[in-house]
């Protein structure tokens, strides 16, 4: 099993979700996060005082999936979250040791 973690622009969530559902992702978890990458934040000016906002708001999308589906999911997120501009985000793929469905106690891929 794999855990796909994507950091995306907040307004792209709906497109990513719809695209993931279409390729068979069973569920996803979304968290509001802040961070920076190569973009290094934005500048805001209040009465002449310039503030560099280093941490920009993003969404973290986590999808647990069977190993053979991971490639499709990464491609799908990459294409649906893409605007072609700076700050589109990143995708990370991790190995996932175990999954448990709390209600039934099922484990492994059947729990996903």
């Amino acid at each position, binding site marked *: 099993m794999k855990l796909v973690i994507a950091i995306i622009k907040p307004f792209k969530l709906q497109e990513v979700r719809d695209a993931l559902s279409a390729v068979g992702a069973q569920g996803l978890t979304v968290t509001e996060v802040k961070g920076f990458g190569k973009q290094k934040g934005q500048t*805001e*000016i*209040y*009465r*002449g*005082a310039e*503030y*560099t*906002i280093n941490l920009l708001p993003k969404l973290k999308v986590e999808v647990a999936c069977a190993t053979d589906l991971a490639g499709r999911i990464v491609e799908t997120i990459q294409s649906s979250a893409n605007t072609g501009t700076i700050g589109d985000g990143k995708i990370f793929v991790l190995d996932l040791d175990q999954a448990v469905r709390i209600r039934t106690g099922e484990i492994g891929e059947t729990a996903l």
Partner: protein
Amino acid sequence: MKTANKLLTGLGIAAGFGLLAAHPALAQDAVNLGANAVTASEPVPDKGDTTWMIISTMVVMVMTVPGLALFYGGLVRTKNMLSILTQVLAILCVGCIVWIFWGYSLAFTDGANNAVIGGLSKLFLAGVTPASTAATFTSGVVIPEYIFMAFQMTFAAITAALVIGSLAERIKFGAILAFSVLWLTIVYAPLAHMVWWSGGFLFDMGALDFAGGTVVHINAGIAGLVGALFLGKRIGFPKEPMPPHSMVMTLIGVGLVWFGWFGFNAGSNLEATGGTTLAIVNTFAAPASAGLVWMFAEWATRGKPSLLGLCSGVVAGLVAVTPAAGLAGPVGAIALGAIGSLAAFGFVGYAKQAFGLDDSLDVFGIHGVAGIVGSILTGVFVSPDLGGVGVKDYSMGHQVVTQLIAVAVAIGWSGILSAILYFIIDKTIGLRVDRETEIEGLDLVSHGERAYHG
């Protein structure tokens, strides 16, 4: 705001007798009319004037709470929002009590040192009754003294509340309460007496201040500047970002402040007349031009027109036109607003940064700077040649010099006495909260509440 013209009323009656005597056809009625004239020498307030002053007084109160409270509140960080709201409301309450107990008497009665400060004859409003009256700019026209007192009370309260913008996010609540009581008594009331009471030396000198350029804005701006210097910079200033937490609140605040300013400026005419409507028009004209000037200046120099820039310009324009509200013409007010706005923009955007001054919400940068510019230029734009209403024996050079003297006195008076008060409070109560409180935020530590949940 002229309040003493008993003499003029007397002269009017004498002139009336003279006319009647010179007019044979009317001479037979002279005795009767004379009797009526004696009755008329105790003028009765006009209901329209009285109503207008009641409305103005209430509107100026809204200018403070919630107007100023939201304007300032939106500009601080979330953790200090509630402290600003609490401070402004508490100062409004303090202002009312101080004014009724002794402030009104010190400002608006004759005193032993009448050039500088009033007396104690109206402590606790002694002798002020529903029947007692205050004079207006027009000979023989009076308004009830209660509403004159209350109108002035709202001025005192908002002036003290304006000061906290410089002290925001680091002042002790107890310190600001003590400061407000002492400052209204020792700084505000005498300055109001000097400028607005017949017998006050700036009034007698002919200094023009229609609604409070010196008494309110320079006074609060300087007290704020001195306070910011005493307190020092906020922790993290200027490296740590301290952006306004809600420009929505700030816009609502500016809207209410502008609305309240109609009562402030046009109410200062003390009657409901054509002159009052001029002050209303000027209170539209100056902030309109000032808002646009700040916006375009920012657009040109920083690349974007910001809402805070527009709001700041509007306030600078309101400040600049305050001393000239009923004296300049509308086009003069537009020019005055533009110049005041540009001066404040320059100070706030450049000079303040160069000095490393943490005047947190720019009380000096906006109220002080635009107040100084407005007070001086009132001497120019009152000129009938520039569409102003003019004053007796007007000469621009002389009037501008008089205005400069009044501005210098207001700066010196407020600066020196405010510094002494800050010093005393710093040595007793202490001015500044401790480091932990400042980092945690004043809302939770000073007041045990927060402005927002969730």
